[in-house]
């Protein structure tokens, strides 16, 4: 290092504002907290979705049925779902849970599982206040759509 460089390095540098450290720490803490919260939210959502799709009484649909509903050309990994009227209780849908309950002799929970029947939704009936109003047509339309789906 030559004398000129040494001289330059000896010159005072611009001062770091006193508040800079506080601002950095505050903002870093906030952003790290946000990211941590987002991670937890993502994990919770993934778990909820995983549990939801497990608990909802759906079954995989065969590929020809997908084509019949004018869906895009299915790939081998594609899976679609539709209600299974053949299954009457959750025991049939959740055999792994039933076997777990049996294994651990959780009789009460097993009974609840066996008793939980998969009943179709009640048809929507418009409330009294809506009869005759402009919304009535929508409610009737929804009702007829749901009933046609049930059939």
């Amino acid at each position, binding site marked *: 290092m030559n004398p*000129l460089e040494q001289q330059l390095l000896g010159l*005072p*540098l611009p*001062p770091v504002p006193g508040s*800079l450290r506080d601002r950095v*720490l505050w903002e*870093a803490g906030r952003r*790290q907290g946000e990211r941590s919260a987002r991670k937890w939210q993502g994990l919770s959502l993934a778990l909820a979705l995983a549990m939801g799709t497990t608990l909802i009484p759906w079954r995989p649909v065969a590929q020809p049925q997908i084509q019949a509903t004018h869906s895009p050309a299915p790939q081998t990994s594609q899976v679609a779902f539709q209600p299974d009227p053949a299954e009457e209780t959750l025991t049939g849908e959740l055999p792994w849970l039933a076997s777990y309950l049996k294994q651990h002799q959780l009789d009460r929970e097993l009974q609840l599982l066996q008793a939980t029947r998969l009943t179709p939704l009640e048809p929507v009936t418009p409330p009294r206040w809506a009869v005759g109003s402009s919304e009535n047509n929508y409610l009737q339309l929804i009702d007829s759509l749901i009933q046609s789906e049930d059939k």
Partner: protein
Amino acid sequence: MAGMDPETLTRLLAEHGPRLILYASTFTRWGADAVQEVFVDLSLRQTPPENLTAWLFGATRNRALHWARSETRIARREKQASRPEAITPLQTTDNRLDAENALAILDTQQRETVVAHLWGDLSFDEVGKLVGISAATAWRRYDQAMALLKERLAGDTQGGKTA
């Protein structure tokens, strides 16, 4: 907590903050703000960069250039609104010669090369990668800048300006 702990962040800020502010002020008046963003980015990394100093200078350059672009847009708007006094050049209130004043005679390219090599301790190869030029060009710019600074510092010393 994911990311860097406050103690490490504070230590790194004390160690690198002044020279990074000097480097950022090559491009913008808001050098400290640019450096703040760099350290926040650093705090969010899961693993520290392999070459921390080079990373800090690179990140500071990007952030400072971003601020400079905003500055230019604001200046353009203010000019259109006929209020040129809204943006003023960097003013110094102290007559004592400091690094920032000494480097004021250099153009942006020379100045950033000098700060990165001398204060940042980056090799000419690293400076070249940082700026997007060859190591030889980085050396040439540095050499030209040092010649100018030599005259400047000699003049200031004769005038008794250095503290």
